[in-house]
């Protein structure tokens, strides 16, 4: 089973566009599609998903006050870095959506009135199917931010489908290099890094590259909108110095935002648009990474 993660560091450079195109182009490869952006899942908007199952996700820890012991001293509220404890009119309460379960209040409380409740309901994992393979998407409750475990659970579901004939897992990672991106990268065999020809995108791509390096995922680079800044050569230099292959370049394509507005992957919306044609040209060079 091959696990392929699409990452970029910087957001909005074309991860979901590339991933949806990969899923369509390689539809015969028995792929499962995983949205690894637990905090802002949106890949399902591009696919016509027929949802069939929801699984509860419990991950968050929150502080709970034992009001029989509490003497309203307010030390916990002063200590809380997240301002999740409010003391007002002789009433103290914990705002669950702000609490990170960090334990600071429980440690500081002289009355030992605060304990941490673990595995609180935090959201769900939605499972469905598309014409390009089964689809897994996260959905967190508002204010929930602990998402590495959620992404890992999504991937474990996809991994368990090996017996059902799933041969590859395509993971659309979140932007950045935080918890959920680490979880997206962990255990992956290949990392497709998307960069725009700008310094900020290049710099962020390096950070994603470093993650891929840690997790021993073989990296590839795709340059998106390369024709908007043709003189930008830092990505090419990096590619040569570090021996990371640039598998392809995608031109700026004004049809992409239009296709998104129509909720269609660009591959379906316009099979002859410049970006689709470019991807069709270079995708065959990576067909060997699929199992």
């Amino acid at each position, binding site marked *: 089973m091959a696990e392929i993660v699409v990452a970029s560091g910087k957001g909005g450079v074309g991860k979901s566009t590339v991933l949806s195109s990969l899923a369509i182009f390689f539809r015969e490869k028995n792929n499962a599609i995983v949205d690894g952006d637990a905090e802002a899942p949106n890949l399902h908007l591009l696919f016509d998903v027929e949802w069939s199952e929801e699984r509860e996700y419990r991950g968050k820890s929150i502080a709970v006050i034992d009001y029989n012991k509490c003497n309203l001293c307010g030390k916990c509220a002063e200590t809380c870095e997240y301002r999740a404890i409010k003391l007002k009119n002789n009433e103290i309460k914990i705002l669950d959506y702000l609490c990170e379960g960090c334990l600071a209040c429980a440690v500081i409380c002289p009355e030992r009135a605060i304990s941490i409740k673990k595995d609180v309901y935090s959201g769900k994992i939605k499972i469905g199917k598309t014409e390009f393979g089964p689809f897994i998407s996260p959905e967190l409750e508002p204010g929930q931010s602990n*998402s590495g475990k*959620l992404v890992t659970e999504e991937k474990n579901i996809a991994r368990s489908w090996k017996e059902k004939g799933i041969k590859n897992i395509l993971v659309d990672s979140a932007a950045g*290099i935080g918890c959920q991106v680490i979880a997206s990268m962990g255990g992956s065999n290949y990392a497709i890094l998307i960069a725009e020809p700008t310094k900020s995108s290049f710099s962020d791509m390096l950070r994603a590259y470093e993650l891929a390096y840690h997790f021993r995922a073989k990296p590839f680079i795709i340059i998106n909108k390369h024709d908007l800044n043709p003189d930008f050569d830092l990505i090419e230099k990096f590619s040569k110095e570090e021996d990371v292959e640039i598998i392809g370049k995608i031109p700026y394509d004004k049809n992409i935002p239009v296709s998104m507005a129509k909720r269609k992957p660009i591959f379906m919306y316009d099979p002859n648009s410049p970006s689709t044609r470019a991807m069709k040209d270079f995708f065959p060079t990576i067909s060997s990474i699929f199992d």
Partner: protein
Amino acid sequence: MRICIATSGSGGINDFVSTVFGRCPTFTIVDIEGNEIKNIRVIQNPGYVSGSGAGVLAAQEIVNEGCNVLISGSVGPNSYQVLMAGHIDMRASPPTSVKDAINLFLEGKLPVAVPVHGGGRRGMGMGMGRGHGPW
């Protein structure tokens, strides 16, 4: 010498090395006396069930357990920092059995998990015979 192996199942000498460290379910810990494997035990990885910060929790556990060596498929950036501070020798292993991985380690055949590269920039560069393998 105490070795921790990040294991992908319920742990033990016949379990397999996990591809990840922070979110592997179990740690199998052994002591090496002479060239013999002794005191095999399994502990749960606190990072496995943690919503976030898995790598740091997992690494702290290994340091607390007094391990000298960690064998894992990979070591992420956050656990790497904790394990470095704890002077743990991190080694990368393919997903073989725990027994095979320990033997490979004792034979000196397991590469360091995250090689340091020239230019003082950790994690950059593909030299040193690292060879990205799809495992």
